[in-house]
């Protein structure tokens, strides 16, 4: 194990910040998952698949537009929008008929979607991995507390709070957000004051899918884009959502921070087993608060 002095040496600390920037991705994806879980009550395993599609789409858009920085920005807009459109089709085509069904059945349905989407992705993009280079504006490193931090990670660290504020505004300040909050608790009564709850559900689902797609597009320059990248992420996202309190966006934020922090700290302290720490954190949280850290809408 590393000593405390090593812990705060410059190299490892910047490694820590790099790890933390992944928290942004976790937050973006799991906030979408928790929105859908809270308002529509769908435990959507296919959320990870939509994230994967977001990454592959970002790859395609960037290559189609010739790899430049502009192509990257375009991908960041187009990929989530296409994933959102896909979400709209899924919601209107399947889920809107199934809200009354048991959660287990919905879980199985979304599991079947992960398999179908996995095959479709293989059909469209092939089985070999793809990669995207970090856009030119983000090449190089910034100095943070005298430590080098790649610009792209800095960008991710900054975009997290931005998304959190955006979601806060949507949920608390827009009429649609207020209706969605009411529907999360009592959707029948929302219908009984004249609101077509179906459209509220569609909107929420689409927003959630947009976030999955955005997470996928943002991670694209940092990892190999492969089949299977959905599996590990959906696991983590579900744990984060459970840890934070089902349906609670701020719970997702808190859960992502705990998950991301323990992961990057764990790798610092004990590199071989670093990956275990976030799972231990989940267990610890659930032992103390079985219903999650913040109030669940369930």
């Amino acid at each position, binding site marked *: 194990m590393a000593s405390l002095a090593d812990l705060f040496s410059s190299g490892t600390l910047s490694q820590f910040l790099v790890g933390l920037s992944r928290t942004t991705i976790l937050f973006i994806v799991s906030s979408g998952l928790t929105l859908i879980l809270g308002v529509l009550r769908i435990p959507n395993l296919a959320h990870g698949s939509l994230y994967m599609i977001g990454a592959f789409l970002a790859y395609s858009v960037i290559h189609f537009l010739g790899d430049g920085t502009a192509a990257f920005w375009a991908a960041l807009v187009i990929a989530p929008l296409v994933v959102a459109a896909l979400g709209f089709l899924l919601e209107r085509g399947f889920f809107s008929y199934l809200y009354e069904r048991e959660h287990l059945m919905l879980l199985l349905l979304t599991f079947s979607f992960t398999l179908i989407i996995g095959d479709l992705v293989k059909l469209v993009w092939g089985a070999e991995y793809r990669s995207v280079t970090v856009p030119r504006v983000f090449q190089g490193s910034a100095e943070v507390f005298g430590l080098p931090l790649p610009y792209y990670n800095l960008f991710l660290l900054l975009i997290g709070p931005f998304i959190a504020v955006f979601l806060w505004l949507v949920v608390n300040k827009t009429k649609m957000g*207020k*209706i969605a909050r*009411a529907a999360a608790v009592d959707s*029948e*009564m929302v*219908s*009984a*004051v*004249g*609101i077509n709850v179906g459209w509220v559900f569609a909107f929420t689902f689409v927003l959630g899918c947009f976030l999955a797609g955005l997470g996928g597009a943002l991670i694209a320059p940092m990892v190999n884009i492969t089949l299977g990248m959905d599996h590990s992420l959906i696991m983590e996202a579900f744990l984060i959502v459970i840890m934070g309190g089902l349906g609670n966006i701020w719970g997702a934020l808190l859960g992502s921070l705990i998950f991301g922090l323990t992961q990057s700290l764990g790798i610092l302290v004990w590199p071989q087993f670093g990956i275990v720490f976030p799972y231990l954190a989940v267990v610890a949280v659930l032992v103390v608060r079985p219903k999650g850290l913040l109030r669940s809408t369930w």
Partner: protein
Amino acid sequence: MLEVDGIHTYYGQSHILFEVSLSLEKGEIVGLLGRNGAGKTTTMKSICGMLHPRKGRLVFEGEEVTGEKPYQLVRRGICYVPDDRRVFADLTVDDNLDIVYRRTGEWSRDRVYEVFPPLKEIPGRRAGFLSGGEKAMLAVGRALMSGPKLLLLDEPTEGLAPLIVRSLEEQILRLKDAGISILLSEQNLKSSLALIDRAYIIDNGRICYRGTVKELENNEEIRKMHLML
């Protein structure tokens, strides 16, 4: 304006309403009286679309509306105020009123606050933290925002202090004067006496009596048999 024609309603396998028929004219306040568990709430939920009768018809303003969803019926002008209020606890008083679908421009937040002045003092309070009386007012106020022609008020004064009951009853009479028809459920005759013109008595899921308030007052036998005292 409302015609309920021989409805049968079930919860799963259990048959709750049997051949319930009732009608209501514009501008009336009609009582739906019955004991604990008689089927008042079930009848109201069947009218507002939260429950769908397996048999029978609903006709509103000459059009058949059987099987429509709650939000569609609200848009026609039928609005239900549940006995347990079901205000949106996470939202503020203002937001509870704001999110309602507005059928007409007739009702606004300010007009609701005029009817229920105590709400005007606490527009930013979360509805979960309101007192019982405030919740009752907010539930009625929320329904008013939709511009209803027919209000289904399910035991609106249940569990409230006498003083608040009286002021709520006053406001309900004002709504009648504003041209809103009301179907009002209560467990006994006394609590609705000041409001209703005539009443139906429901027992064990069946309508077993219909008549004017005067007839009911004179018929002690019926009251003893089917109502709470």
